[in-house]
C-alpha cells in the first residue's frame, strides 16, 4: 500500500515535471517565403496549433532565399539552430543527412505519411528513412501575359517546339514587346532553360548516366546540345534590358507589372507576381496563360516530363518532438486544402488538391499527375557545389561569356571534383 502510494506520488511528480517541461517548448521554424499573404496563413496555422497545444510556442524566423542557402551550413551546426527548416530535397539534403544534422523522423510519421503523395515523400526519404516532409510540388514552364501575346499575334497554345518558341520571340520583338523577363543576377532562373532543355533532349536516362559519369558525364552530347539550343535563344536577345542585374523577385514583379510577355518560372509565380508587382495587384487569372516547356524534335525526353521542385520541411537534430508534431499538423489535409484554396501550393497530401480553385493551378496539378518523370531542379538535385556551377554556366551562356561546350565541360569538371 505504502509502496503504491509512493509510486503514485512519484508518478504525479513526474507528470508535473513533464508538464513544466512541455510548458517551455519552443519550436523554431525558419522559412524563406516572401509572399506576405501566404505567411499570414502560416502564422494563423501556427497560432491555432499553439491554442490547441498549450505550452508550445511556434516561433517563425525568416531569411531571404539566397541568404538562407549561404547560411545553412553554419546555421545547422550552431547550438541555437532552428528546429524546422526549408528544403528543396536533392543533393543538399543528402549532404545534410550524411553530416548527421537532421533528425530521422521515420517512426514519428509512421501511418501519417501514407496520406502523402509517394513521389513527394520519396524525395525526403533516404535508405528507407524519412528525414522530412514535403509540403508542395511545382512545375517549371512558361507563364505568359495574354494581352502582350495577343498584341504580337502569338498564340501561346501553338508553341509546341523549341523553334516555335524562337519564332514567338522574334514576333514579340518585332511588335516592340519584351519577350521574356528573367532574374539573371540570381542565376538559377537562367538555369531553368539549360536544365529543361537537357530534360527534353536526353530525358531521365541521360541525367542518370551523367550522374554515373557515363557518356562523357555532363560534358556529353545531351548537355552540350542544351547549351547550344539555349544559345540560339540568347542570340535573339529575348530578355529585358539589363537582365543579368535583375534579382528574381524584381523580375517576377516586372512580369506582374505587365512589362514582358513571358517568363520561364516555377508555377508558384501565379501568386508571387501579384505580391511583387508594383501595384500589389499584378496580373489577374484571366490575363495569365501557361504553356509547357517546348519539346525538342528528336529529343528523348517525354512530352509530359516535368522539371520542378519538391519542397518541404526538415527537422534538425535534437529538436523537441513537438517540432514533428507541428509539421504533421501543418501538412495535414485541412491546412493543405486551405493553402491550395488560396492557390499558393500544389498540395502533396492526397485529396487536398480538391481545394485548388483556379484553372491555372488545376492545370499544373494535372500536369504533375500525368508526369512520369519529374526532375527536381538541377541546382538542388546535384548538390551545392555542382548545382551552383550549373547556375553559373547558364548565366555565362546567357551573358555570352562562355561557349555551350565549355559550359558542359565546367559542370563535368565540378562533378569530378565532387564534394
Amino acid at each position, binding site marked *: 500500500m505504502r509502496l503504491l502510494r509512493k509510486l503514485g506520488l512519484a508518478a504525479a511528480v513526474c507528470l508535473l515535471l513533464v508538464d513544466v517541461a512541455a510548458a517551455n517548448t519552443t519550436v523554431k521554424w525558419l522559412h524563406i517565403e516572401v509572399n506576405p499573404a501566404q505567411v499570414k496563413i502560416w502564422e494563423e496555422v501556427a497560432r491555432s496549433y499553439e491554442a490547441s497545444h498549450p505550452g508550445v510556442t511556434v516561433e517563425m524566423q525568416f531569411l531571404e532565399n*539566397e541568404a538562407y*542557402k*549561404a547560411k545553412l*551550413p*553554419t546555421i*545547422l*551546426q550552431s547550438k541555437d539552430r532552428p528546429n524546422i527548416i526549408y528544403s528543396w530535397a536533392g543533393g543538399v539534403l543528402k*549532404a*545534410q543527412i*550524411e*553530416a*548527421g*544534422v537532421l533528425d530521422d523522423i521515420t517512426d514519428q510519421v509512421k501511418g501519417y505519411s501514407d496520406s502523402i503523395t509517394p513521389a513527394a515523400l520519396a524525395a525526403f526519404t533516404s535508405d528507407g528513412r524519412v528525414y522530412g516532409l514535403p509540403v508542395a510540388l511545382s512545375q517549371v514552364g512558361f507563364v505568359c501575359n495574354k494581352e502582350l501575346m495577343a498584341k504580337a499575334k502569338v498564340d501561346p497554345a501553338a508553341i509546341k517546339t523549341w523553334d516555335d518558341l524562337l519564332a514567338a520571340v522574334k514576333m514579340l520583338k518585332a511588335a516592340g514587346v519584351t519577350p521574356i523577363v528573367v532574374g*539573371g*543576377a540570381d*542565376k538559377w532562373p537562367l538555369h531553368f532553360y539549360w536544365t529543361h532543355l537537357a530534360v527534353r533532349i536526353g530525358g531521365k536516362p541521360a541525367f542518370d548516366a551523367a550522374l554515373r559519369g557515363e557518356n562523357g558525364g555532363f560534358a556529353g552530347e545531351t548537355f552540350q546540345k542544351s547549351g547550344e539550343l539555349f544559345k540560339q535563344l540568347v542570340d535573339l536577345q529575348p530578355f529585358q*534590358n*539589363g*537582365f*543579368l*542585374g*535583375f534579382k528574381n523577385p524584381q523580375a517576377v514583379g516586372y512580369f506582374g507589372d505587365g512589362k514582358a510577355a513571358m517568363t520561364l518560372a516555377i508555377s508558384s509565380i501565379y501568386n508571387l507576381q501579384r505580391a511583387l508587382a508594383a501595384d500589389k495587384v499584378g496580373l489577374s487569372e484571366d490575363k495569365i496563360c501557361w504553356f509547357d516547356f517546348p519539346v525538342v524534335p528528336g529529343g528523348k525526353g517525354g512530352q509530359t516530363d516535368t522539371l520542378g521542385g519538391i519542397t518541404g520541411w526538415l527537422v534538425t537534430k535534437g529538436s523537441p518532438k513537438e517540432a514533428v508534431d507541428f509539421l504533421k499538423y501543418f501538412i495535414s489535409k485541412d491546412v493543405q486544402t486551405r493553402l491550395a484554396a488560396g492557390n499558393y501550393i500544389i498540395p502533396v497530401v492526397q485529396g487536398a488538391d480538391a481545394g485548388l480553385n483556379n484553372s491555372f493551378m488545376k492545370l499544373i496539378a494535372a500536369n504533375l499527375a500525368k508526369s512520369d518523370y519529374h526532375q527536381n531542379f538541377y541546382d538542388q538535385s546535384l548538390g*551545392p*557545389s555542382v548545382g*551552383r556551377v550549373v547556375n*553559373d554556366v547558364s*548565366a*555565362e551562356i546567357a*551573358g555570352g*561569356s*562562355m561557349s555551350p561546350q565549355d559550359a558542359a565541360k565546367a559542370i563535368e569538371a565540378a562533378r569530378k*571534383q*565532387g*564534394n
Partner: protein
Amino acid sequence: MARRIAIVSAMGVADETVPQAAIRGPSWDGRFTVLILFLPPALLLFTLFVVLPIGEAAWYSGFNWNGFGRPTNWIGFDNYRFVLETRAFWLALRNNGLIIAVSLAVQLPLALTLALMLAERFRGAVALRMLFFMPYILAEIATGLIFSFVYDGDYGLVASIWRTFGAEPPHLLASTDTAILAVLIVIVWKYFGFHMMLFIAALQSLDKSLIEAARIDGATRSQALRHVVIPLLYPTIRLSMFFAIVGSLQLFDVVMPLTRGGPADSSNTMVSFLYNNGISRMRVGYGSAIGVILFVICVTFAFTYQRWFMRDE
C-alpha cells in the same frame, strides 16, 4: 613585440611600477619581469584569434569538405590546383589589381588635392570636410544598396540622366564590361574622404615655418608645394598607400550588394570569390585554399612594404 615592451620599460613604466628596477636602471631583470607579465596575455590572444584560425584554414584547405561534420577526405594540394585552374580566380585577382591601381592613381591624388584645398581655415572648410568624409562613415552594405538604385537602368539616377540626353540608359551593373567600372567608382567615392582626412591631419601638423621660409626665399606657391609640403607629407602618403592597398585586397562588402561578383564573375574580388565558392557553394576546403592564397599575398605585401617603404616609421 619584445622590442616594444623594452621601450615601454625604458620609458618609465618600470620606473613607476617597479621602483627597485628603476634604481638599478632598465636591467634585463626588470625587462624580464615586464615580459613575464605582459607577453602571455598578448601571446595567448594572438594565438587564439590569429594563429589558430589561419592554421585551421590552412588545414581545411587540404580537404574536399562541404562544411558539415568533420573533414575526412584529404586531397592534399588539389584545392590549390583547382583554384589556380579557375578562370574566375584570375579575374578576381585582376580586379583586385585594378582596384589597387585606381586607389593609387585616382583616389589618393584626389584626396590629396582636396586636402590641400581644405586644410586651410576658411569659412565652410569644416562643413566641406565633413561632406567629403560622409561616404566613409556610411556602412558599406548601405553604400552598395544605395548605388544599386543609383545605377538601376530603369529607375536609377544614372538612367534619368541618360534619358535627359535622349539615350537608352545602360544597365551598368548587368554588363560584364561595365560592372567592375561601376564598382570602382563607388570605391573611390566611398574611401577618398578617409585619405583626405589623413592628409588634412598631416597638413595641419606641418611646421609652417618651413613653408614660410621657402616663400621668403622666393619659391612660388606651387614650388613650395612641390618641394616642401609634399615631401613633408611622404610619411602620411606612404601610410595612406598602405591602407589603400590592404583595403583593396580585402574589398568585399561594397561588391556584394552591388553585383555579388557578377555578371559572369566579372566584378568578383578575391574575397567575394572566396565567399561565393567557400560559403555559397559549401566548398569549405576550396574556400580555405583561396583564403590562404589571399593571406599569403597580403602578408607578403605587408612585410615587403614595411621593409622597403616604411623603414623609418
